[in-house]
């Protein structure tokens, strides 16, 4: 096990920032800590690095308990959100810093720096200062600097936040390749669910200082453990319904809800891909009018307005959209094939955002 957290909590002046967090990162894994800003994910990263002390709980790196080991001796690479490059040093000096303070021999140092310069495609920039580099180049220098002393794990705090949106996509893929080539364990913090879904082997989802779910991107998307996860990852239709004789109703929509007592209010969620649409207004169970269509590349998302005024989002491929001859303003029918009664009790419900 590369990193292991056992029941870790952190209080800042009596305020709980991280609350009984436990998770593990396997050797060579790429794991994302995902959550909205202020949810404690960066604090967790900083505690692993030793930049913050946990109030309670134990942290292990490669089986060694590091709680009482100072930052310098933890052998952890850390890439800061704003990179924190030494601005009075050249690219070369930045990368060599960790080796210098660890008293590597000059010849070894030069070999290692040259390797990293090549690996991170920084050739020709060795003698530049940080202020002469682009955002993407700075990020690569920061990663090279952190990797130089051969850390046990590499921690990255919002690694793509300070890069132009234009090249973010490419950098994500590049990071995955780098991680595969080096086999180094990486743990990164992000608030961007798309980023986490795309590159992480596993995702640890945080909310208000505790873990909501730990799973693979696919598992998180298909089987969200809590309503928070369901709504944070991807798009979901969420509506409040009232149960009656084992059926939850909202407007004309009905969802079997066995075991839910009569009169109870529940929340029902379903993904746009779980909605099937037909151009024949009488073919499927519910009727509505397409209000808007959104072009998402390969996919199309349509918003269907029901007679009661509810809006339902459905997703279908571009081919299906054309084949069915759908268009805005058209009357269609649809059915909901997958849905979920959300267990809203464990997390306080948030204001409805995706109401239909």
């Amino acid at each position, binding site marked *: 096990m590369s990193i292991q957290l056992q029941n870790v909590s952190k209080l800042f002046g009596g305020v709980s920032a991280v609350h009984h967090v436990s998770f593990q990162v396997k050797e060579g894994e790429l794991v994302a800590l995902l959550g909205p800003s202020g949810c404690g994910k960066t604090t967790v990263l900083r505690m692993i690095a030793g*930049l913050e002390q946990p109030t309670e709980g134990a942290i292990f790196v490669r089986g060694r308990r590091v709680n009482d080991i100072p930052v310098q001796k933890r052998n952890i690479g850390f890439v*800061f959100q704003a990179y924190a490059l030494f601005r*009075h040093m050249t690219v070369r000096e930045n990368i060599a810093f*960790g080796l210098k303070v*660890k008293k590597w021999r000059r010849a070894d140092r030069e070999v290692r720096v040259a390797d990293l310069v090549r690996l991170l495609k920084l050739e020709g920039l060795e003698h530049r200062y940080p202020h*002469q580099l682009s955002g993407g180049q700075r990020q690569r220098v920061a990663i090279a600097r952190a990797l130089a002393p051969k850390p046990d794990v590499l921690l990255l705090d919002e690694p793509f936040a300070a890069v132009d949106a234009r090249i973010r996509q490419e950098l994500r893929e*590049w990071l995955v390749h780098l991680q595969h080539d080096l086999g180094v364990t990486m743990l990164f913090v992000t608030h961007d669910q798309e980023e986490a879904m795309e590159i992480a082997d596993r995702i640890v989802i945080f909310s208000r200082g505790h873990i909501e779910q730990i799973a693979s991107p696919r598992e998180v998307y298909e089987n969200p453990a809590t309503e928070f996860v369901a709504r944070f990852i991807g798009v979901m239709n969420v509506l409040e319904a009232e149960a009656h004789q084992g059926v939850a109703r909202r407007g004309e929509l009905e969802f079997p809800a066995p075991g839910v007592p009569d009169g109870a209010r529940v929340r029902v969620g379903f993904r746009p891909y779980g909605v099937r649409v037909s151009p024949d207004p009488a073919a499927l169970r519910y009727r509505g009018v397409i209000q808007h269509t959104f072009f998402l590349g390969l996919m199309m998302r349509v918003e269907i307005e029901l007679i009661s005024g509810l809006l339902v989002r459905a997703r279908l491929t571009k081919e299906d959209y054309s084949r069915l001859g759908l268009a805005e303003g058209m009357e269609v029918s649809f059915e909901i094939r997958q849905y979920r009664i959300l267990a809203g009790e464990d997390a306080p419900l948030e204001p409805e955002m995706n109401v239909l």
Partner: protein
Amino acid sequence: MNPLPIHQSGSTRPHVATQEHPLAQVLLIAVAMLFAAVFLLLPLLNVFSQAFSAGWRHYAREVTSPDTVAAIRLTLLVAVIAVPLNTVFGLLAAWTIARFEFRGKALILTLIDMPFAISPVVSGLMLVLLFGTQGVLGGWLQERGWKVVFAPPGMVLATMLVTLPFVARELIPAMQAQGSEQEQAALTLGASGWQTFWRVTLPSVKWGLLYGVILCNARAMGEFGAVSVVSGHITGETDTLPLRVDKLYHEFDPAAPFAVASLLTLLALVTLALKTWLEWREDRDLKRTLAPDEPIAGESRTIGGGEVPPA
């Protein structure tokens, strides 16, 4: 992108709201130049012309007279002790204030500023009250044969008191702007606290530090009020250059005080030159020429396309 077309009236120059009328500009610049010439440049030149009014020989004699040489020596001694001590203090104070949140931070900041607010004469008097024969500590020191007031140690203390804020005041904003992330990065890379300080903290504020040291030194060598109170005015023993100038000014030779004053004026000019150079260097170091982000591999462009018909 071009904004909506605006109809320009006759003039071909675009009129910017913050720009004054050309005539007003010329006038304002002329007034500023005139003021600078009358109140700064003219008196400065006058110091040198007065200094040499009795000839080169007289100037050389005055500047190399034993009492003046003693004053130069004492001035340098005071500066050599006071400036490094205040530099160390300034570094420690700035680091503490910029890096930590603690109770009484505002109080420390206010105390550091105190010498700016207090008249130097009062600063001198405070030392006399503390270390003089009747003072709280003076008696104790005197019993052990240590003379502070009316002796060089007192003058060093007075100078330190007056110049205390210079380095700290330059460094606090520099360190606050810098933040502690670079230091944290150094720690994660395995640097000890000491290595971090010497290799990261200090180099990143070096221009601010030098700037503070230069201003501190200028003030330390030029201080009059506080030093005057604690000096005791013993010619050849407790006179610094400013005190020597004052003493000569009250004597008969009209050229003598200006000859010594010309040394202090030279110091001022050197200080200004260094300060300008530092500002230029710092500006150059800080210049942010952020290059645009480029894709790592070559950029690919769409050159055409269409749909492949089904087989």
